[in-house]
């Protein structure tokens, strides 16, 4: 469904992605773990071509694009199949909460205003922000901004959603709620790629977990395998810093 082949990305002389290949099925939820600076955000940004990879191909359902010969049309098509939740939220500063969610529906999906509004409000309700509909981003707390970002992405009904640390600013209760929302969407067949530092979140949500380091995929497995029976020494080390806390009750 989503397939990455040998994605390379350099910043200047620094190679940040060193040939990433990944195969994701429809409805899969992939979590990407890895130390800070390992290239997780860059990988997500390469998938919707906000960052242009130097090499590699990206395939989403029937659309396959080669990084070395990108056309404007392909880029647009690809972006319309995906949606992204940014690590730093990136809400439209000139639009209020409701408009932030509606914007894509109206402009890209050509939905009627009233319909878009109803849908957006329903989503805001889901993430607990219906009462902040007319606030501007600058009037929202970090967690609130993050939830608007999530709602904005969900509203588009894309084939693939890319989440960049979608729960970093959320309190434990909300993390639980977002988890529910994501699980629900996954059941509808939407594919999701989630960069996260919360191992428990990854454990609870994903069908597959990918561990990245220094621009490479070190290990990929089901959560159960990766967390409780990692094959690589590096994975083991990374996981151990947190996993010890879990009551092995899964």
């Amino acid at each position, binding site marked *: 469904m989503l397939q990455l082949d040998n994605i390379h990305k350099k910043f200047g002389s620094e190679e940040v992605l060193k040939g990433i290949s990944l195969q994701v099925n429809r409805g899969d939820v992939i979590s990407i773990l890895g130390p800070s600076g390992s290239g997780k*955000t860059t990988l997500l*940004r390469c998938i919707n071509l906000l960052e242009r990879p130097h090499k590699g191909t990206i395939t989403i359902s029937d659309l396959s694009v080669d990084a070395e010969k990108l056309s404007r049309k392909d880029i647009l098509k690809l972006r319309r199949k995906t949606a992204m939740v*940014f*690590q*730093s939220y990136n809400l439209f500063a000139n639009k209020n909460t409701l408009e932030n969610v509606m914007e894509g529906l109206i402009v890209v999906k050509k939905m009627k205003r009233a319909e878009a509004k109803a849908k957006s409000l329903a989503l805001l309700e889901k993430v607990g922000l219906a009462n902040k509909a007319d606030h501007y981003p600058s009037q929202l707390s970090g967690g609130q901004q993050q939830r608007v970002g999530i709602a904005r992405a969900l509203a588009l009904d894309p084939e693939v959603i890319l989440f960049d640390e979608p729960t970093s600013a959320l309190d434990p209760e909300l993390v639980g709620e977002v988890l529910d929302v994501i699980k629900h969407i996954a059941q509808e067949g939407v594919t999701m790629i989630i960069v996260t530092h919360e191992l428990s979140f990854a454990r609870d949500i994903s069908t597959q977990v990918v561990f990245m380091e220094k621009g490479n995929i070190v290990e990929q497995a089901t959560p159960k395998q990766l967390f409780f029976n990692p094959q690589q020494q590096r994975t083991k080390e990374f996981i151990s810093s947190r996993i010890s806390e879990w009551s092995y009750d899964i």
Partner: protein
Amino acid sequence: MAEVIDAFWKLLPKLPLTLSFTGLALVGGTLLGFVLALIRIFQIPVLSQLIVVYISFMRCTPGIVQLFLIFYGLPKLLLQVGIHINSWSNFTFAVIAFGLHCGAVMSEVIRSAYLAIPKSQYEAASAVGMSYFQSLRRIIIPQMLRIATPVIGNNAISIFKESSLVFTVGVVDLMGQAQILTQRKYGITLIETYLAVSFIYWFFSMIFGRLLTFYQNRTERKYKIMARRA
């Protein structure tokens, strides 16, 4: 063509005057504009309203009227309080008039650049313990400059060309010299002289623009992908 070159050499001696005039008016105006902009940003009561009127007057009335006001009005005004400035050179009066005008325009440039800097940058500086002026100097102004360089270029070039108005009070600048040259010959060499004078104006505007672009590209590297990510 020979006449263009001839005019060019006759115009050239006036270049230092025009450049120094522009420089003085611009530097004075920028400093003034900065103070005005700060007062407006902080919305200091009374002063802030006065400045709005001042800016409005300076921007909206013709330059020649302002020049006359300073040239003829200011000495009379100051005489009332016993200050004699009638002996000041016309150059000085013209610099004052242009500086005041430039201040009004620059204050808007500066204010708009200030508005464009996210407040979070100022907050970060405050949180580190910088005083307001320290944060301006070290954090805010460098970022304002990055945004405002093209507009500063606009204004510098405008003043450079508008400075030709000083000929009205007898300061012979580039454009004044061009007029003298053409009128002396009853306008026969008008086009040639204007071509020469345009070349000089264009050349220095272009050099100045290049310098700004150079500065801009140098600083731009830092922001190249400005908050592309966070």
